[in-house]
């Protein structure tokens, strides 16, 4: 018999429908406004919470659901207004070492979280938050690398006792070494060539000088840039993760930019403070006793003052990997891997300095708020940046170090901290913030509400129209349409953690339009076949069948467009493309398979004289039929 789906197909559809429903539920639980307190130098505990409680009670702010962990304290509040008051109160109560940020906390019930159902991430435009565009200083990255190469070249030549007539960094990709004759140059070349596998060597003569050029080939430079961007992105990501923001975005954009979006965070100053506290690492030797006072600086370490020689023997960007591990005796240690050149560099320095101490300095750019009085005696707050150098490791060089070496004599906690610090310090190149924007929470909420209402009213109007125009078939189409919206929500909340933005909502609107279109195509086709004199069952089958190619072609081409937009676009364009792609897939399922299942249930498997699909032209009575 025509128009019956096998039981497995109906079951499958039912399962998809149930899953779609289940996984879109979390979206009806609104987030709580929250304050998040974190610190990167101390661990948090109940006594901090006690201080916060007192501060909030004094400010008469109601709060609930506080969560205290070593890294974070989260306090839930009733409203956005409370959030701002509470933030000021907590900031006043705690010292500058604490970071107090506005945040949002989910209220999804535990059983839903347990099955992996979550809320859809809302974009900055719908939720509010801060957006930064950071630019990586590639020139500095390449330049620093070349300077590093130069000092390496010098020390190799010194060791080999090869005299030069001068060395010079011409530009970020080009180093020039001048010699008195071709023989020294050729010796120098063979001494250097193995140490710089990445560089190209060339010789030329200028006047009576014999020049050796070392150049970074374009593809290597490009690779360096790519690695630098990637490394910086990872560092920023770790940093942002430690901020504890729900669903942050750290994205590469173009060749040298990184986009950081922190939804829910309402305080850009705080976020900048955090992002700019980006560290670099330097390896030094301890100053020799009796060294001239200008050649070293003193740092506190373990309660003592250590004199650290000013010369940098290795930069942090030579570190390729850091791990805290256990040695063969089960004692904690920090294992550091260097790149090839870094390995050569540290080997040369340490083999002449066995028995001396090696120091690792972590240099951070920090900011502090300074309060001054203006002419009228008002307090003015200003943010000032300063460099904070910290000695994080002070250890004896026991042997000439190879590319991979370990720092021992630490307890487990120290080893962990040290490897974390070194990792955070391996930011490959300096970065600047080129653009920042803030979207307030109220504006975000208004956008969301308005957008949501728009979609709601639109959907209701479409539902009413479809019902009126296609009757029973309209009911099937409407069920499919509602299902489609649920499925889009479910996919976006749980399957692909996509972020919903305003353009994304519009993408959904367009999908709703297209989903209806698929049904319109099918239904008009069915009516047409009825007008041509087909029996209802045949007409249904033919309608679905013939409209299918059209729908497939139309949807596939649109899908291709969305895919291109997704690959090429960023930000809003991407957000639109994602929802459109998801919507096309779900709507193909609901509009074709879903409505068909319903129509089959209603009309399938029995003899039907008339179907309720609205008005259509009756077939001409006088037809010539073969008997």
């Amino acid at each position: 018999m025509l128009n019956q789906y096998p039981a497995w197909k109906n079951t499958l559809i039912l399962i998809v429908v149930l899953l779609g429903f289940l996984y879109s539920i979390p979206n009806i639980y609104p987030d709580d406004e929250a304050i998040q307190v974190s610190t990167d130098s101390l661990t948090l505990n109940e006594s901090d919470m006690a201080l916060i409680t007192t501060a909030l009670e004094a400010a008469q702010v109601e709060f609930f659901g506080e969560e205290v962990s070593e890294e974070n304290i989260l306090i839930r509040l009733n409203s956005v207004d409370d959030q701002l008051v509470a933030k000021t109160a907590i900031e006043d109560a705690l010292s500058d070492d604490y970071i107090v940020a506005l945040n949002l906390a989910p209220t999804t019930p535990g059983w839903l979280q347990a099955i992996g159902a979550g809320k859809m991430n809302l974009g900055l435009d719908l939720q509010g938050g801060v957006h930064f565009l950071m630019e990586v200083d590639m020139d500095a990255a390449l330049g620093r690398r070349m300077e590093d190469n130069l000092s390496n070249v010098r020390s190799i030549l010194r060791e080999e006792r090869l005299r030069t007539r001068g060395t010079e960094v011409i530009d970020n990709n080009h180093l020039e070494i001048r010699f008195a004759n071709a023989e020294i140059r050729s010796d120098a070349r063979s001494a250097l060539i193995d140490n710089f596998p990445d560089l190209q060597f060339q010789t030329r003569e200028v006047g009576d000088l014999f020049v050796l050029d070392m150049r970074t080939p374009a593809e290597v430079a490009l690779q360096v840039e790519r690695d630098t961007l990637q490394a910086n992105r990872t560092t920023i990501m770790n940093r942002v993760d430690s901020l504890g923001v729900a669903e942050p975005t750290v994205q590469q954009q173009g060749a040298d930019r990184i986009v950081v979006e922190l939804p829910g965070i309402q305080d850009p100053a705080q976020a900048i403070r955090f992002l700019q506290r980006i560290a670099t690492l330097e390896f030094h030797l301890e100053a020799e006793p009796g060294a001239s006072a200008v050649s070293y600086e003193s740092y506190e370490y373990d309660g003592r003052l250590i004199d650290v020689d000013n010369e940098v023997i290795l930069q942090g960007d030579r570190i390729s990997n850091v791990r805290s591990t256990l040695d063969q005796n089960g004692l904690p240690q920090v294992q550091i891997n260097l790149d090839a050149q870094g390995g050569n560099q540290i080997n040369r320095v340490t083999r002449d300095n066995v028995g001396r101490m090696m120091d690792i300095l972590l240099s951070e750019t920090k900011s502090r708020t300074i309060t001054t009085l203006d002419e009228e005696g008002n307090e003015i707050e200003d943010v000032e940046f300063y460099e904070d150098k910290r000695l994080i490791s002070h250890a004896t060089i026991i042997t000439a170090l190879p590319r991979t070496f370990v720092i021992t004599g630490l307890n487990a906690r120290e080893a962990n901290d040290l490897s974390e610090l070194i990792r955070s310090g391996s930011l490959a190149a300096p970065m600047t913030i080129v653009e920042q924007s803030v979207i307030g929470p109220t504006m975000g909420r208004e956008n969301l509400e308005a957008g949501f209402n728009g979609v709601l009213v639109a959907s209701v109007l479409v539902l009413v129209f479809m019902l009126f125009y296609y009757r029973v078939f309209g009911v099937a189409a409407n069920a499919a349409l509602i299902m489609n919206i649920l499925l889009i929500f479910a996919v976006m909340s749980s399957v692909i953690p996509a972020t919903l933005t305003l353009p994304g909502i519009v993408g959904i609107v367009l999908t709703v339009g297209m989903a209806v279109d698929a049904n319109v195509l099918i239904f008009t086709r069915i009516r047409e076949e009825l007008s041509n004199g087909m029996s209802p069952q045949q007409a249904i089958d033919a309608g679905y069948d013939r409209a299918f190619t059209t729908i497939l072609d139309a949807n596939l081409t649109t899908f291709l467009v969305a895919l291109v937009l997704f690959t090429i676009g960023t930000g809003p364009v991407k957000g639109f493309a994602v929802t459109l792609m998801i919507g096309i897939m779900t709507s193909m399922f609901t509009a074709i398979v879903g409505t068909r299942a319903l129509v089959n249930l209603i009309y399938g498997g029995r003899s039907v004289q008339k179907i309720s699909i609205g008005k259509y032209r009756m077939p001409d009575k006088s037809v010539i039929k073969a008997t």
Partner: protein
Amino acid sequence: MQLPSNIDFMGVRKIASAISITLVIVSILALFFNSLQFGLDFTSGTSVRLGYSDTVVLDEVNFALTNNGYEDAVVVSFGSDREIRVILPVDESVEVVNQAEQAAEVGETIAALLSAGSSSDVTLLGSDYVSAKVGEELAEQGGLGMLVALGIIMVYIAVRFQFKFSVGAVVALAHDVIITLGIFSIFGIEFNLNTLAAMLAIIGYSLNDTIVVSDRIRENFRRMRKGSPIEMVNTSLNQTLSRTIITSFTTLLVLFSVLFIGGETTQGFAVALIIGVVIGTYSSVYVASNVILYMNVTREDLMIPVKEGADLDGMP
């Protein structure tokens, strides 16, 4: 509304061509001479930070700014309930020597203006020039994206249909996007990231429409034994007419509700799409089919390769 319609769409194809060409030319001229009114996403601006001694009410600030000729200003709360940020577009036509100085001037003007109309003390915390480099990059990406998308569509349609249909579809898309942009330019509607997304949506919609019509043309060319190409296109357009009208109607229903209820931020979007849908509907009838006819489409163009014929011709 199942129409036994027999409208001679292609009878006025010459007039339609003339109208389309005129509209495209007018749009290009408008874009060339009048440009688009770019929103803050695409232009540079001045960001002014202000501190209040009491809680700020954003609506009041907005009101004060609008009343004093700063309709384009965007006001957001900034970190606390006593700090706001006002972003003002910079007039690109005025040559500015020192952007920092100019930003400082704007900052002072705004601070003075707002403190005059407010009961609390307003202090100027800082003002900066914000560049729009990001916007430009994004616009380039959007443009590039459209070009690549058009290329891929051409290939797909050439494979599924025939090359003449590719040209038809792409001409129709270009037609829709250019005229929509032209209308934006002529009526000075703001072009921002949301409207950019709308342009992309128009591509999707217009394509959808065009494919549906093309699909029917393909089917009829394969099935109907008699009739000139013009007749067959006419039949196809008549057969898809009720679907075209219903879909455009429901889409417009959706868009008008977004326009009236969806809030300020989506209005530009809705307007762009409404224009796009109207033009897209027209172009799927008159542009794509017309181009196909001008390219002398024949039955042979659409004949199914012999080996597949047996499967596809079966009647249920």
